[in-house]
């Protein structure tokens, strides 16, 4: 009986010690679960700068999580995805207001400046996170297209990490659901049709399928 109790105490002690070690390791590697409430607050400021009436980044995070779960992304990937969704357009804060708010068509130079926002965002976030965090890279690639015509790096297909491919599609879906100065919000059927048309072009076909499966439920 004494041996049994001793074994039980030892098992509990080992589990506790392992948990403490794991926790310590996570802390040292900066892998503590981030406090999303603060980041959601920041994302609201970014949304306002971009003149979104509804919370764009938060809606995007919800949409992206559903797709990512259907594609079997693990918890670590989900945390990166949520962070990247909330902060994806932080680089826009450094783009001149008159370019973001311009009513007419942007000229080539203005378009080039606007298209620097993923790089500005990446650099801003990368300065303050450990080197092996992937969120800055996801921010960099949220405007890449599956067929290699996106920006800034014109990555193609699998070169774009799967999480960034999910980010890109979610951004488009939530933007289509919102009223914009140049068009009203699109209905779900139109959105599904448009996303389906862009399968294999703007978006990864596997991510499109996961989105359509979710939309069909």
């Amino acid at each position, binding site marked *: 009986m004494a041996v049994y109790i001793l074994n039980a105490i030892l098992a509990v002690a080992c589990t506790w010690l392992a948990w403490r070690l794991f926790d310590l390791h996570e802390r040292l590697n900066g892998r503590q679960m981030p406090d999303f409430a603060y980041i959601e607050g920041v994302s609201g400021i970014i949304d306002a700068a971009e003149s979104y009436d509804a919370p764009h980044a938060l809606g995007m995070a919800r949409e992206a999580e559903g797709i990512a779960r259907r594609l079997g*992304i*693990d918890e*670590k*990937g989900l945390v*990166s995805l949520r962070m990247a969704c909330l902060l994806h357009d932080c680089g826009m804060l450094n783009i001149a207001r008159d370019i973001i708010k311009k009513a007419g068509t942007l000229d*080539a130079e203005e378009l*080039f400046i606007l298209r620097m926002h993923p*790089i500005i965002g990446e*650099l801003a976030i*990368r*300065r303050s*996170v*450990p*080197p*092996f*965090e*992937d969120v*800055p*890279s996801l921010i*960099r690639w949220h405007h890449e297209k*599956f*067929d*290699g*015509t996106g920006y*800034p*790096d*014109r*990555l*193609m*297909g*699998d*070169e774009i*990490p*799967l*999480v960034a491919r999910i980010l890109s599609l979610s951004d488009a879906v939530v933007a289509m659901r919102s009223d914009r100065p140049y068009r009203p919000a699109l209905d779900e059927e139109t959105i599904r049709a448009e996303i*389906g*048309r862009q*399968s*294999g*072009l703007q978006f*990864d*076909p*596997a991510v*499109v*399928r996961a989105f359509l499966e979710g939309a069909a439920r």
Partner: protein
Amino acid sequence: MIRFQPSWILESLPPDAAKSLFMPLVPRPSSLMWFKRLGIRMYVNDPLESRAMLLRTLLAEGERFTEQNRRRFNRVIRKSLDLQMNPFRNWENKPFSASQLDYLFYWREAAFEISEPVQRDIFWSAVSGVMAHWMAMTAAGTTPAFPPDELLACMLRRREEQLFESAEKVYALHLPIEELGEEVEAELFVVPLQFQGRKPFETDHDVMYHAWFRGDPDLHAALGEIEAARRGWVFDWKNGCNTDAMIAKSGKAAYAVFIWSGADLPPRWHEENVAAVLRNAFSTRFPASVLRVKAADAGRDDYDFLLTMARPGYALPADLRQSPGNELG
């Protein structure tokens, strides 16, 4: 697979250090657009004609595909062709459908009737985009949303949307690497480092497109040509790469940059087995170096690496060297 990031390369150098660059072996041509947009003079080469043609049409030639040629050569095939007549018939379901093979055969032959070489190149480069799309859709088990003629028209349009004038010329070369001059005046020497490794043919766009371009369905022969053209410039797990040839081609460059991507191995492995080898080989000519690494997908151990090296008398940005977050070495 490589995630080529031009702005990252420029960030690793002092401001305005690279007004010109030389790449004996290019990555995917479209990834060089950033350099072109910034008005950097480029000497870029691909030893394979199928890829050099893509390089020319996208970066060097500003011509548009004429409406007359579009009407004449982008037609709908009303009656399917006899598959036995199609040289690419062995590719049926690997990965193309019979109908797609009809179009691949027709487009290749039709292009020979285009008398202007630049127009023919543009037409063929659009087919490259269509093939990439079909291969991706087959891999995902999804049916393409657009019929072939609309897809080809879409690819032609997309190319035109990407055309722009640059302040500096792009020299798109097509030469065997060993025949390239060694006294290139460019300030920056760039090597996008690929790793030896084979994908299944039906998912390898480079091989499929090169075979189609040659008009020979033998994929092993196409792969053989690709490997021969790049020999020494692809990192082999056993033998590394031909650093002597690379050093020779660096010419008078003030800076040399290697960029590569790697999954499934920790960054430390890349530092010890790739970066250390390159640093050691280049140390006489480029003694100062900084290795930078960033995660692309931390969950898959997928990282991007950038090794920047400078000749004596040329500085590497001090803030990058001192930043503990951005470098390994």
